[in-house]
């Protein structure tokens, strides 16, 4: 057990800090949350800046154009960029954390050359078309059909809750290519250009009033066979490679941000007198314990990933991600409920930063595998309990 970082890691941190210090003051102002094209431009400019400085695709393998950084370096990157108030990955989330790594792992040389560089340079934005109206937690039941026609698939169906669909160039699309096969064996993973004829994007409003996700309708959309990643009908396995990137260090920066929010909550409570309430203070104390522990859990998961890499494994954080996500999503909701307690009636102002966060925190126990699904995973895959029905 050791919490010290190596001299190389400290060097990495120092260089990154110096670069952030030089770069961040030169960034343009943040666009308004509802201006999606401006947000896309902002996120892509930040990705380009990372690219030019040699920080793009930090955790991607070198032969995919990434930096081949260790999980620990990736953790340092997330920690330092958050502390410095740098922009988030934003619209490039799917490209950098899902679609890109999938193509890097499962794609051919030609496919990697076509799709990876524009992701790293912040030139092409990806979205994730997995969920459907009838297929959410039970993703393998999805119905969007792809039928071969010459050198292309003809795709028909619809996707839902597709984040950033309005501003995406590409969509990682999971479709059914063999309706006769068992559910998990008849799926394929396709790269869909969002401007293809027959693609209709209808923005959906979230409960926070924003339009960060959309419904995507696919009517006889032709997608070249060459856009399939991995073998036909092997899409489930290909997709699982992606999903394992979704859990793990992905929220490390957010944990740091929550810790800082917690300190601000305490400061506001002191100002407005709520601090005198023992029950409130204890609630804040417990949240401090929770986020302290979550940070430690991130470090434990990174240690796990690091050792998996050293011993020839794939460096995927593993099932520890489910434990983390369950606790984090709940702690984040409790954080902003406590903020509301401190704000009193001002928590009813929807423009208050903490109210907006309170609303958005409600998605954390749903998106990327609901809490119930995470518990199923822990019970069956970690604890080895017999499969439920």
């Amino acid at each position: 057990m050791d919490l010290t970082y190596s001299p190389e890691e400290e060097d990495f941190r120092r260089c990154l800090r110096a670069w952030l210090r030089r770069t961040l003051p030169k960034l343009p102002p943040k666009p308004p949350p509802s201006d999606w094209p401006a947000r896309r431009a902002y996120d892509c400019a930040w990705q380009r800046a990372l690219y030019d400085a040699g920080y793009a695709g930090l955790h991607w393998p070198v032969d995919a154009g990434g930096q081949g950084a260790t999980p620990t370096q990736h953790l340092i990157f997330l920690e330092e960029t958050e502390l410095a108030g740098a922009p988030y990955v934003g619209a490039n989330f799917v490209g950098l954390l899902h679609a890109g790594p999938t193509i890097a792992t499962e794609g051919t040389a030609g496919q990697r050359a076509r799709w990876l560089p524009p992701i790293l340079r912040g030139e092409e934005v990806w979205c994730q078309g997995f969920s459907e109206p009838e297929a959410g937690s039970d993703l393998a039941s999805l119905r969007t059909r792809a039928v071969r026609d010459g050198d292309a698939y003809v795709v028909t169906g619809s996707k839902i809750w597709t984040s950033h669909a309005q501003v995406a160039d590409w969509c990682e699309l999971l479709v059914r290519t063999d309706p006769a096969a068992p559910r998990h064996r008849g799926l394929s993973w396709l790269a869909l250009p969002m401007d293809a004829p027959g693609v209709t994007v209808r923005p959906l409003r979230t409960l926070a009033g924003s339009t960060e996700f959309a419904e995507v309708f696919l009517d006889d959309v032709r997608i070249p066979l060459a856009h399939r990643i991995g073998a036909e009908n092997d899409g489930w396995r290909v997709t699982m490679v992606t999903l394992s990137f979704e859990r793990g260090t992905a929220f490390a920066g957010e944990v740091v941000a929550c810790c800082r929010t917690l300190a601000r909550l305490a400061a506001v409570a002191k100002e407005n007198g709520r601090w005198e309430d023992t029950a409130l203070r204890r609630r804040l104390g417990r949240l401090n314990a929770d986020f302290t522990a979550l940070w430690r859990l991130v470090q434990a998961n990174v240690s796990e990933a690091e050792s998996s890499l050293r011993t020839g494994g794939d460096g995927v954080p593993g099932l520890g991600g489910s434990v983390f996500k369950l606790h984090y999503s709940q702690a984040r909701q409790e954080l902003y409920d406590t903020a509301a307690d401190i704000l009193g009636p001002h928590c009813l102002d929807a423009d208050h930063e903490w109210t907006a966060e309170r609303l958005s925190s409600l998605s954390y126990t749903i998106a990327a595998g609901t809490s119930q699904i995470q518990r199923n995973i822990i019970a069956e895959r970690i604890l080895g309990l017999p499969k439920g029905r």
Partner: protein
Amino acid sequence: MDLRPDDDQRALKAGMRELLQARFPRERLREAADADRPGPAFDRALWRALGEAGLFSLRLPEKDGGAGLGLPEAVLVFEEAGRALLPGPLVATHLAAGHVPGAAEGAAVVTAVDRPGMVEHLDASDAVLLLNHPSVHVLSTAGGTGREKLPGRPVRSVDPTTPLYDVRQLPPAVTDHAMQVAAPGADRLRREAALLTAAQQLGSASRTLEMAVDHARTRIQFGRPIGTFQAVQHLCAQMLVRAEIARSSVHAASLTMTACDISAAKLLADDAAVRNARDCLQLHGGLGFSWDMDVHLHLKRSWLRLEQWQGAYEAEEVLAAALSNGPTEGVPDHRFREMDWTFNGVE
């Protein structure tokens, strides 16, 4: 950075488990629990065996007969003690090693007190660590029982294997029979005590999780193992989350020893031990409510450990206070506080 125990540390932990299986098997726990009056029967032979195995001298330098190990190793060993529900004032005797003659070898039984309240194993103790002042004092009970030197009313302890004494008044800082011990001060020892108590809670929480999962796999109702019922599965999943959250904070706290990390570790490990024992009890149905199962022993011991060194109220206040020491104070890693710059690049 690597938060996982290394090979030597894992071997140490495994060695402690083996030792306890040999010297304190379940039958011994049950004998102690089933005895009508546990107090007088303090097992000094076991205490010596633990001393010989190095439980108390673990962190003493090798030149003083110790193993020269640190708190991370002590934590792993105390997890095993918590798992086996090993009775006795383990933490106090461990802290007394090097300060109280005989403690390191397990020849002396040492209990401790940091405030008026319940003192464990007072009658059986050869010395009492007094941690209610900035410096540490030792009250020797030589020539009498602990209770004659430190008046305490025996109570019927909720934990059948831990005799308790209600001590209303502690001696003033320096008394005739009090001996001041050289550094570290009482604050440091209280932190270490909280950490090692948290480690025992973690061991207990992991054990009750195992017991719950074993039972869920084998108990058949409605023609199938109860572990196939999702309500049961989700209870078990939350038990694992609690144990793992506690584990990473206890292990990290053993490395940093900051007040914030220690309080988080104690709070979360207490939570894990108490609530996992409760869920384990629930999953056992009527068996869970019976004396002959070990679940209630875990629950009762966890209630006891919860009250020791730092209760939830205190830990939460410490953690809340840590938040208001400046804008970056709330961030977990102490390294964040060394930040030489803070600005927000995006206004």
